[in-house]
Structures are given as structure tokens and as C-alpha cells.
């Protein structure tokens, strides 16, 4: 069975609290608690009222990661967030390293 579907991006780039909770299969409270503890961030321009919060896709990926770590290791939220921080940092560094490596490789292969 094959069928075609159009993906639309702009309207889903930002998530509100309900969309984020539903998409990540966590409760609203789960998210609110972690935002208030500084483990997750919403768009700076939104107010203190959770109903007005907006999140980008990175929060989505981050929450899914934290949920897995908390569940697999039965660890607390701070520790899971710390691991997520480090994974995000590693991703950034790996991307930089990849470009630096391929650059060095090109230079070394020049006559």
C-alpha cells in the first residue's frame, strides 16, 4: 500500500503546551514542572502563563530523550536533563569535528 502525503512545516515548527505534551506522551504537569526547574525552555517572548508558552522542535526531541533516560535508568529529572545537555553538546561538537576533519583531509591530500 503506497500513498502520497504533503508535509507542512511552518505551523508545526512551534508547539504549544498541549501539542508538546500530546506528541511526547507526557502530561502538561510533567512539562510545566521541568520548565519551572529550568530543565526545559520555552520561547523567551512568551509570558509566565503556561497556556501562552511556545516551544520549538528542539524541545520536542529533548523531551523524548529525557523521558527515555528517566524511564530506563529510573533517575531523577535533573540527572536526565544533564545527560540530555551532554548529548546535545556532543552533537554540536561532532558536527564541528566532522567539518574540521574533512577539511584537514582535503588539505593533506593536496599535492
Amino acid at each position, binding site marked *: *500500500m*503506497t*500513498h*502520497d*502525503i*504533503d*508535509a*507542512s*512545516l*511552518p505551523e*508545526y*515548527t512551534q508547539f504549544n503546551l498541549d501539542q508538546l505534551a*500530546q*506528541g511526547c*506522551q507526557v502530561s502538561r504537569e510533567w512539562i510545566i514542572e521541568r520548565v519551572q526547574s529550568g530543565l526545559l525552555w520555552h520561547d523567551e517572548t512568551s509570558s509566565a502563563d503556561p497556556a501562552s508558552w511556545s516551544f520549538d*522542535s*528542539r524541545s*520536542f*526531541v529533548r523531551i*523524548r*530523550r529525557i523521558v527515555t533516560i528517566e524511564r*530506563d*535508568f529510573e533517575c531523577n529529572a535533573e540527572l536526565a536533563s544533564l545527560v540530555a545537555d551532554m*548529548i546535545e553538546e*556532543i*552533537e*554540536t561538537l561532532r*558536527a*564541528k569535528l*566532522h*567539518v574540521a576533519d*574533512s*577539511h584537514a583531509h*582535503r588539505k593533506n591530500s593536496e599535492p
Partner: protein
Amino acid sequence: MEFKDYYQTLGVARDATADEIKKAFRRLARKYHPDVSKEADAESKMKEVNEAYTVLSDPEKRAAYDQLGQRGFQGGSEFTPPPGWDANFEFSGRGYNGAQSADFSDFFAELFGRQMGGERHSHQRMRGEDHHAKIMLDLEDSYHGTTRSLTLRMPKLDNRGQVVFAEHTLNVRIPKGVHAGQVIRLAGQGGPGHTAEAAGDLYLEVQFKPHARYRIDNKDIYITLPVAPWEAALGATVQVPIPDGAVDVRIPENSHGGRKLRLKGRGIPSATPGDLYLVLEIVLPPATTSKAREFYQSMAQELAFNPRQHFGG
């Protein structure tokens, strides 16, 4: 269908305690964590480990599974569940959810699938499960858009009320402007809903394949731009290939290596597009000919340049 030896997957003895099973699971969860593992097939290994732990950490599922082991089934042997094998077992469904089980094997679905069907009946009028997948794109795709074909496994109930997996292929047209880490939601493309309820959604997490020339940071792109010493010193206009074509870039005079030139709005397209940064790298011409050596010698004599001035002393 192959019989799966869940004890072997977790590397524990058949009489392992719940605590030993948990410890073994955590050790493997660390080893095969898809974000950090160096193992080539970490993601599929992790799925197997999750599946084994889902069964062995649940006393009811474990007891039912053990009963099959006692009937002589071994890892890798051909397996068809004996009729009534799970009579007297009541599965409570703790520890995993339907969305996760989409990653599990046919063996798991055959054994515990009916329970998923049962759950559906007990929570009548349930919305379908949301599913998650990753999608790998090329950077150029974010400038032009693309179509990607995805093959998904969807659990569905057959006429015996068993859950079976059906494959279906989805051609997803992705518009330009997609960026790394972005999540695309395809409404209604997740698991089917029960009776009149809506199907779940499919979430695609976008990742870009590593590129030798471009580094992507959210919506910004970084390119290392090699320049000759005289281009950096005197200024020059050079042509630079970028993902959506080529641009003429003016290099200001007296530029130093590592200087960043920003091309505003030439990063990943969107309502507020990212920027494209060119990071200058000064490349020296090799002193391999006598002519080149003469040039370097006269520079040394006439420029009175000391690159280590700030070392002091």
C-alpha cells in the same frame, strides 16, 4: 517465526532475580544508547534489549514466556505458539505502550499482541497511537524541498483479534525550509484509532546527513572559505558555491584567518531564514619553486613582520 531468547539478549541466567535483570538492562541501555553508542547497530540492538526487558521485567509476561522455554523452545528455533499457551495468564500491560511496541519483533506481537488488542477493547473509543520516526535529509533538500519514501510498520488487528504488523509506504513531500532537529507532524498517519476515533499522528524528526563542506547549526550554515594571503590582505571579490547556487562575496581588506563573513538570510529558508557564515581560512601558496621562494624571501625582508609580537620577550 524465530523463537527469541530474551535471557540471552540481556545476558542473564534463566533464574536471574528481578534486580539482576534490571541491572543487566541498565548496563545495556548505557552501552547501546542510540545517541552516544559507538556500536554500529546500536539502535536495533536497543530495540531488542527493550523488548527483552519489557517481557522479563513484567512478572506475568515472564512467567508466560518461561513456560514456553520449558516446552523446549530455544533461541533461533522455529516457533509457532502452542494453542492455549497463555491460558491462565492475565497480562496487565505494565511497562510498555503500544507506540513502543511498534518497534518490537513479530515474535513479541505473536505472544503478547492479543493483549494489545484486549487493551483496546477495555479502553473503548481510544485515539490511535502516535508513532515516531527519524528522517535523514541532505542539506540541499532544505533549500529545494524533496520527496522521501518511508516504509512503516503498523500494528493492526487481524480477524483472530491478534495484532499483526502490516507494512505500508508513504511518500512524504517535504517543502523547502525544513531544518535539523525539526519535527514534522503528519496528522492521522500514526496508529489506527478504535472504532470512530481518530488515528494517531506520525512525528518525523529531521536529521541531516553530515556534509563535508557545510556545518549546520539550527538554521544557520557555516562554510570554511579558503582564501589566498593577498585576497585577505588586499580585499577581493570571490565566487562561493552555496547550497542554493553561487554568490559573489566581497572579502574586506586586512581580513585575518578565522574572520566570519555573514550572509544574512542565506541560511536555511523560512519565515525568518537562517544566516550563512563564511569562515575565512588563509591558505599559503607552497614554496616549492625558486620563484615562490624568492617571493617569500623578499616579503620576509621588506615587511618586518613578527607574528609572535604578542608573545613579548
